[in-house]
C-alpha cells in the first residue's frame, strides 16, 4: 500500500505540472485527495490498529510512530487538496473576469496549476520522510520540503511573500545543514568505535551503548538545533511567523499542521538513539528548554498581534513548544498528552488557516481590526474559525484542554513544580490572547463596514463591476470546494474528543511506547 500511495502521488504531481484546463487540475486534486484518504487511510489503519509493519523497496518502512504522524498528514492533506482545487477554480474564474480586487492577477508566466503540482510534491516529500528507515533519507526529504514550500510561499510574487520565502529558505537550509552534520557525526561515532556505520535509527539505537557519548552529545545538539529551526522552536523561530502568514492559505495549513510535526518526528527518532545510549537526560533537558522558551515567546507575542495569520503562526510555535515539553518531561503520561496534542493541534490549525484565508479574502486584509464582525460577512468561514480557535485555545470539550492539563499534571508528577506553575500562567495568557482576538474578529462590530456600505449606496462610486454569469458560476464552484474542505476539517475537529476514549486512546498509548520514556 505504501508503494501504491507513493507511486500514485508521484504520477499526480507530475501530471499537475503540465499546463491544463482548470477542470483537469480540479480532477487531479480530487483524485489525489481521495487517494490520500483511501490508500493512505487504510495504510495508517493497518499500521496503527493492527500493528503491522509496512515496507517498500527496502528503504521505506512504517512502524507505529511513523504511522501516527502519517495519519495526521493523511487527514489534513486530503482536506487541504480539496481547498487547493477550490483556490484553482476561483483563480481561473477571477482571471477570466479580471476581478483584480478579489484576487490580484499574477505577473509571472507560471501557470496556476503549478501550485497544485508543488503542493503534491510537498506532501510526497513529507510522506517519504515519515516512512524512511534512514535518518539521512528523512533529512533529504525534510530539506526537500524547504525548497518546495519556499516556492509555494513566494508563488504570488508579492513583496512581503518574497521576503518571507527568502528568509525561510535561507534560515531553514542553514539550520538543517547543522542537523545533517549531526547525522554524519552519528555515522562517525559508529565508525570510530569499530561498528558497522549506519543511519538506520533502529540499528543505531542497538549500537548506541558502545558509541562514544561525547560525540553522540555533539551530534544530538546539532540535530536538535537543525530540526528545531525547522520545527519553529524559539528562539530559532524568526522565519516562522513570516512564512506561515505570507503563504497562500492551503500552504500555511500544510506548513503549520504537518511540516512542523515532521521535524519533531526526526528529533524523536534521534532521541531514541540517545536514550538507548543512556543519554536520555540530555535529550529531556534540551527538549524542555526549547519547549519552554517557545511557549514563553509565543504566549507573549500572541497577545500583541494585529495580523490574523501571524497570530495563528505564533499559536503554532506555542503548540510545538507544548509538544516538545511533553516529550521533554518524558513520562508515559506526558508523552501521551504530547501525541493527543499533536493530532488536535494539526486538525484545528489546518481549519484555522483555511478559514482565516477565507476571511482575509473577504476583508482584503490580514489586519484583524479590518475584519471585525466576520460572522455577518462570511458566516461559514467565521464558524469554522471559531470552532478551530476554541479547539486551539483549549476550551473544555476539546482534547487540547485535556492534554494541557495532563501536561501540567505530568510536570508536577515528574517533580518539576516550577515548570508546572509557569506553564499554567503562560497557558492562561495564550488562552486569553487567542480568545480575545477570536471574539473580536468573529463578533466584533465593524464601523468601517457600515460606513463603506452607506458611502457606496449614497454615491454609487464603488459599485461592484458587472460579472459575467459563467464567471460567477465558476467562482461559485470554487467557493463550494473551499467550503467543503473547511466542513470536512470541522467534522474532524468535532470528532477529536473521541481520541480520549478507549480504542483510540489505547492506540495512541501504543504509539507513545515507541518514544523514549513513553512505555509503561
Amino acid at each position: 500500500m505504501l508503494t501504491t500511495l507513493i507511486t500514485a502521488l508521484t504520477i499526480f504531481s507530475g501530471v499537475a505540472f503540465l499546463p491544463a484546463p482548470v477542470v483537469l487540475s480540479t480532477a487531479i486534486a480530487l483524485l489525489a485527495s481521495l487517494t490520500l484518504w483511501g490508500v493512505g487511510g487504510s495504510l495508517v489503519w493497518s499500521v496503527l490498529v493492527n500493528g503491522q509493519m509496512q515496507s517498500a523497496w527496502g528503504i521505506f518502512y512504517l512502524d507505529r510512530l511513523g504511522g501516527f504522524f502519517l495519519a495526521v498528514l493523511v487527514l489534513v492533506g486530503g482536506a487541504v487538496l480539496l481547498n487547493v482545487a477550490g483556490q484553482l477554480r476561483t483563480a481561473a474564474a477571477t482571471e477570466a473576469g479580471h476581478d483584480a480586487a478579489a484576487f490580484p492577477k499574477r505577473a509571472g508566466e507560471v501557470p496556476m496549476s503549478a501550485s497544485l503540482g508543488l503542493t503534491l510534491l510537498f506532501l510526497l516529500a513529507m510522506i517519504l520522510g515519515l516512512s524512511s528507515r534512514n535518518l539521512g533519507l528523512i533529512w533529504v526529504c525534510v530539506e526537500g520540503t524547504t525548497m518546495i514550500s519556499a516556492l509555494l510561499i513566494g508563488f504570488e510574487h508579492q513583496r512581503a511573500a518574497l521576503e518571507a520565502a527568502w528568509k525561510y529558505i535561507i534560515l531553514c537550509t542553514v539550520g538543517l545543514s547543522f542537523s545533517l552534520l549531526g547525522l554524519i557525526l552519528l555515522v562517525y561515532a559508529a565508525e570510530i568505535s569499530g561498528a558497522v556505520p549506519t543511519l538506520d535509527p533502529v540499528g543505531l539505537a542497538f549500537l548506541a551503548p558502545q558509541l562514544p557519548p561525547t560525540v553522540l552529545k555533539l551530534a544530538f545538539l546539532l540535530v536538535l538545533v537543525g530540526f528545531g529551526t525547522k520545527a519553529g522552536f524559539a528562539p530559532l523561530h524568526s522565519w516562522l511567523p513570516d512564512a506561515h502568514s505570507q503563504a497562500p492559505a492551503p500552504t500555511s495549513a500544510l506548513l503549520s499542521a504537518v511540516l512542523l510535526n515532521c521535524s519533531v518526528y526526526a528529533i524523536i527518532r534521534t532521541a531514541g538513539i540517545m536514550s538507548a545510549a543512556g543519554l536520555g537526560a540530555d535529550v529531556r533537558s534540551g527538549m524542555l528548554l526549547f519547549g519552554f522558551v517557545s511557549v514563553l515567546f509565543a504566549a507573549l507575542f500572541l497577545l500583541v498581534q494585529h495580523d490574523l495569520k501571524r497570530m495563528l503562526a505564533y499559536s503554532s510555535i506555542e503548540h510545538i513548544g507544548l509538544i516538545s515539553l511533553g516529550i521533554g518531561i518524558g513520562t508515559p503520561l506526558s508523552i501521551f498528552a504530547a501525541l493527543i496534542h499533536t493530532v488536535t493541534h494539526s486538525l484545528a490549525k489546518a481549519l484555522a488557516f483555511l478559514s482565516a484565508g477565507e476571511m482575509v479574502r473577504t476583508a482584503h486584509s490580514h489586519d484583524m481590526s479590518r475584519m471585525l464582525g466576520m460572522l455577518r460577512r462570511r458566516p461559514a468561514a467565521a464558524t469554522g474559525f471559531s470552532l478551530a480557535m476554541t479547539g486551539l485555545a483549549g476550551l473544555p470539550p476539546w482534547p487540547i484542554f485535556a492534554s494541557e492539563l495532563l501536561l501540567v499534571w505530568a510536570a508536577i508528577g515528574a517533580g518539576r513544580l516550577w515548570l508546572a506553575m509557569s506553564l499554567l500562567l503562560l497557558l492562561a495568557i495564550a488562552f486569553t490572547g487567542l480568545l480575545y482576538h477570536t471574539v473580536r474578529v468573529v463578533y466584533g462590530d465593524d464601523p468601517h463596514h457600515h460606513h463603506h456600505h452607506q458611502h457606496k449606496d449614497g454615491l454609487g462610486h464603488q459599485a461592484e463591476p458587472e460579472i459575467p454569469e459563467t464567471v460567477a458560476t465558476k467562482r461559485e464552484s470554487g467557493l463550494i470546494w473551499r467550503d467543503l474542505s473547511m466542513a470536512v476539517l470541522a467534522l474532524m475537529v468535532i470528532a477529536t474528543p473521541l481520541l480520549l476514549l478507549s480504542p483510540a486512546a489505547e492506540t495512541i498509548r501504543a504509539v507513545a511506547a515507541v518514544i523514549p520514556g513513553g512505555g509503561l
Partner: protein
Amino acid sequence: MEYYSIVATWMGTIILISGFLTVLFRRFWNILACYRVQSLALAIATWTAGRMTGSSHLEIIAYVTLIVKAILIPAWIRHVLKRITTRTEARLTVGVAFSLFSAAGLLLLSHVVASRALYGLRVSPEALTEVLALVLIGLFQMMTRREAVTQMMGILFIENALTLAALQLAKGLPMIIELGIMLDVLIGILAMGILVYRIQEQFDTTDTAHLSTLQG
C-alpha cells in the same frame, strides 16, 4: 597508495584555504571562483578516496560532484548574476582584518570543540576541526554580507563542508543519500535563484537589508 594519500592531503588543504579566502572577498566573481576551486578539490578528494578504498560508489559520487558542483551550479549562479546587473560586489558589514581574525577564531573554536568531543578516543581531531571550521566560516560569511547572492553562496560553502564531512568522517554515506543531498542542493539553488530574480524584480535590489517589512 602513497601518491593517492598525498593528493588527498593537498585537496583537504585547498578546500580549507578556499573556504578561508571567501571571508576576504566581496566581489561575487571571486567568491564564485573560490567555490569552483573548492568543488573541484572536493571531487578530486572523493575520487582519490574511492581509488584508495577501491569503492566504485565513491568514484561515481566524485563524477556527480564534478558535474553538479563544479559545472552546473556555478553556471546557474553566473546566469543569475548576469540577470541582476545592479551590482557586482557585496557590502561588507565588517572590515577585512576583523573577518580574518574571526575566521582564525572560528578555527580555534572548532579545534576546541572537536578535541573535547573526541577526548579520550584514539582519533585525531583534525578532520572534525576542518569540517566544523568550514561550516562556521560559511555561516560567518553569510552573516557579514547582506546580498542575497552571497547568502546563496554561503549555503553552498556550508554544503561543501558537509560533503567533506560525509567523505572524511563517515567514509561516504549510502549512495541514495549522497545523491539525495546533491539533488536537494541543486533544487535549492534553482529555487533560490528564482527567488533572487523575483526579489530583484519587486525590490530593484538584492540587498537583503531591504527585506525588512515583516517584523514582530
